[in-house]
């Protein structure tokens, strides 16, 4: 990111090669449109090229920053296309974009993505669905409750337990600083 701030195109290319696949997967999952996902990836990396000074290395690993930015921009697009109701998460996503700290930085490295995938696959189906609805659709817990046809308290439990189990799975591998 430092090299990008110094206007080194090769640095952006390296960042793109390393993370574009993940960003594109997030965009496809959230936007459900290949064209929009193409645009989002282009816009996001163009934004990184032009506004890399906004990135604070002391607050977040690059991948954390990019994932957060990708989610935030996807929510912006969903809102603009009237496919998404404004939710309290929107403002939170903006806050995370600049404030995201990185105590779990180790878990966010590429080589640990397999561990996250494994941990997610071991979640209870309801927990995983609730978590994914909160993350990828930006739904509030009441909207998730309506979507899943479950009581509000149950959905909150799903989300809380899902994140707790994710944390436990990552801690077992010593990938997560406690």
């Amino acid at each position, binding site marked *: 990111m430092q090299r990008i701030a110094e206007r080194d195109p090769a640095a*952006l290319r390296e960042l793109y090669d*390393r993370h574009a696949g993940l960003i594109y997967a997030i965009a496809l999952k959230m936007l459900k449109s290949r064209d929009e996902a*193409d645009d989002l990836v282009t816009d996001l990396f163009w934004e990184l090229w032009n506004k890399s000074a906004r990135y604070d290395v002391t607050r977040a690993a690059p991948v954390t920053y990019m994932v957060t930015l990708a*989610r935030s921009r996807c929510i912006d697009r969903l809102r603009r296309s009237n496919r998404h109701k404004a939710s309290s998460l929107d403002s939170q996503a903006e806050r995370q974009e600049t404030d995201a*700290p990185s105590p779990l930085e180790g878990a966010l490295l590429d080589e640990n993505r397999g561990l996250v995938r494994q941990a997610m696959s071991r979640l209870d189906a309801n927990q995983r669905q609730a*978590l994914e609805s909160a993350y990828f659709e930006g739904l509030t817990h009441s909207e998730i409750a309506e979507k899943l046809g479950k009581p509000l308290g149950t959905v909150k439990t799903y989300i809380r337990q899902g994140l707790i189990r*994710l944390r436990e799975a990552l801690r077992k591998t010593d990938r997560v600083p406690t």
Partner: protein
Amino acid sequence: MTTEPDPDLMLLYVAGAADPEESVRAEQLLSSASPDAQAAYAEALSLFHAVPLGLTAVLPPAAVGDALMKRVMADASAAAAPTMSFGSTSVAAGVANDGRGATHASTPSTDYASRFRWPVYVTSGLAACLAVALTLSVWNNSKLSDQNARMSTTLAGLSAQNERMSTTLVGSQNVLRSPHLTLASMQTGDGTSKSFGRVLFCPVTRQYQVTVFNLKPLPPGKAYELWLITPDQRKVPAGLFTVDGQGTATIIAHPRQPVDVAANAAVTDEPAAGSDSPTGSIHLVGALPAQ
């Protein structure tokens, strides 16, 4: 009001699952500047943003990266370019000087014209020489511009080729560095050809590196296309390529749709723009290891 950190509260807060009262409490804890509360918030936030890391990476179409990098390169070049103009200043000055000289030469004094015609001849001669030099200069400049345009086109082509090779190289490095690397082979269907292929697979990044050998070069308008085939026989196009003079090529698979598990890989010949489903001959096919 307690200021004790509550990890579960922070989990709900960052996931948007906190009630209004819980949100207020979380924000009060955060504003209390308690290190424990900050740490709990940070951990919850990082956990929440670990959720998408479980997604299988899907590489965007190569055109997306190419267009982005062209834009970035143009931006970087524009920022680095000096503000001076090229050539026009000296040419313009030459025209102006020449114009001034010609004006003086064409308005001689009547007295001197009859007695001292030689300065007029000399001046006219000089003006003619300048005009010829100027014409040659403009012509030469035009040739240089054409040459410059051709070289720029060649350079852009080489740059794009370099970017593609860099992408493949980075992808290959990622695959080869994996401690969980698996290897599979691809063969021709009938065994009558010397063609074969190797597939390296990294189960962590879900990247496939495919190298083919002894494939025949295809005629213009055709290209080889790599396919990843799922256990339910869904055939996902994963990249177009051509081979070199030795019939060899190495590519990193770019599946156009997410592929959670691929059971087989295959190579067919297709129109140069690629196909959504296989239409040409199958040149190589092979089973992939269990993932």
